[in-house]
């Protein structure tokens, strides 16, 4: 076995980058090679982990905090049910790879029988659709990622 030839210099460089940028993790991949470095936040609050050990998983995923969310993420402005198409059976508002303009309707959220359009906050390409048709969503949940 050839084993690794870990590049000290690279690790040190990434460590320095963590410092400079305030990031907690950097992952890098190229072809078959990848590297990930991370640094736990010092003095992590002791509490939540303790409690979470007893907490059962929430039915729907917790909303991403602002800090962790993708810059191109379009989030749910309300609780409700997602509709990806204007009517059952019709074509969806947008599909993966579509280019959208600012203000274009991406999907609907139904709340108390009202269908609320969720619009693109900027122009861009639809690179991920994170919700299924008729899925329930929480406030702040990421729906679509534009790039």
């Amino acid at each position: 076995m050839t084993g690794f030839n870990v590049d000290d210099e690279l690790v040190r460089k990434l460590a320095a980058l963590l410092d400079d940028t305030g990031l907690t993790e950097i992952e890098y991949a190229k072809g078959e090679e990848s590297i990930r470095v991370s640094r736990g936040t010092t003095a992590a609050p002791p509490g939540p982990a303790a409690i979470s050990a007893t907490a059962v998983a929430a039915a729907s995923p917790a909303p991403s905090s602002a800090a962790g969310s993708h810059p191109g993420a379009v989030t749910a402005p309300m609780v409700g049910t997602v509709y990806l198409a204007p009517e059952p059976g019709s074509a969806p508002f947008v599909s993966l790879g579509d280019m959208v303009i600012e203000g274009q309707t991406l999907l609907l959220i139904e709340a108390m029988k009202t269908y609320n359009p969720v619009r693109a906050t900027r122009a861009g390409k639809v690179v991920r659709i994170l919700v299924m048709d008729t899925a329930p969503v929480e406030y702040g949940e990421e729906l679509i990622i534009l790039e």
Partner: protein
Amino acid sequence: MFEKVLIANRGEVALRIHRACKEMGIQTVAVHSTADNDAMHVRLADESVCIGPPLASQSYLNIPAIVSAAIIANADAIHPGYGFLSEDANFASIVEEHGFTFIGPSPDHIRVMGDKIAAKSAMVKAGVPVVPGSDDALDNAQSARRMADEIGYPVLLKAAGGGGGRGMKIIERPDEVADAFSAARGEAAAYFGNDTIYMEKFLTGPRHIEIQIMADNAGNAVSLGERDCSLQRRHQKMLEEAGSPALNDDQRKSISEISRKAIKKLGYRSAGTLEFLYQDGEFYFIEMNTRLQVEHPVTEMVTGIDIVREQIMIADGANLGLKQKDISISGHAIECRINAESPIDFSPSPGLITDYHPPGGLGVRVDSGLYSGYRVPSNYDSLVSKLIVHGATRDECLMRLRRALEEYVIGGIETTIPLLERVILDPEFISGKYDIGWLEKFVEAEG
């Protein structure tokens, strides 16, 4: 029985409701704002749904968001807690229209009791004593004198258009009526452009005493006795006792029975509270709260009855399992409200809880969503914990409270614990001789 209950509230009361549900085998759905992602009840609930940003108007007061959450979580019923939407008749109606059970009274009862004039009138009809006074404007000094003689001195003149003390005059003796009436009328005309004047009995040092009632759909009604909530600062209760140190057994039985009969007559359902001012042996109804009260635990401690459980049972259509004769008061209980604020100037003190250790042992109950590492958000009410203590007697209860407050560790933020510790050592407080103005004076004297 309900399979799933949505808890439309936050903080300690959301945790209180969660616990009652779990103890009945009911699944819970916590709805919360983004400021409460890490709240204990959210972590403990079977499901959670984020319903909006921190601003209460967009989350905990957001009716469409809460109803939508109930729909997507497939809940059977909604418990509103206290505050927020708990006394919003419109919310209760919408909840019912969408096929969910509202854990509380009917929207109609909420509506009537939410209107002070209508509530007072309904209570008078139901035989409940109210503050004596003129329902109509006083025409002249002569009619003012007649009214004052009838009510008994001192009396208070109030401007119909008024507020801020303008147009208000306290009359101690009959010979003061004429001058006071013209002075009040003049002020009222000058400040509000309306010289209409009313009169009511002036209470010099009343206590706040309230009666916890409970009724079912079948017309069964019980009273769970009184709570004394006279320890208040700026109309915020700080410490509550059951029973009241001011009442004798005849008095407590009498007002308890008057309240029970009234809510039976009103056809009320669920838990509720009749609030009274009490002075010189007389009770005067002020308002009815058509919801769970913050201070309900003191009643639970002395009666052994789980009020939230009974609310849920009644909402599910069950009849009260209790008759009035089954209810007995055992010992004495006191609740202290612990707020995240300075014990000196009462400025808010939100932030990270660095250490947390609640007191334990016999007769001590803590209702709190605090934990070590939790961050108290700055967006809401400062109540972060309720310490409730029970004892065989009031003396025993006070001694236990003292040692429990000493044991309580809440690090990282300021709390009102030091103020509470000083209050319960005060001889006047210990003697039980305090009225609704006492705490303000105590705080001023300290300052």
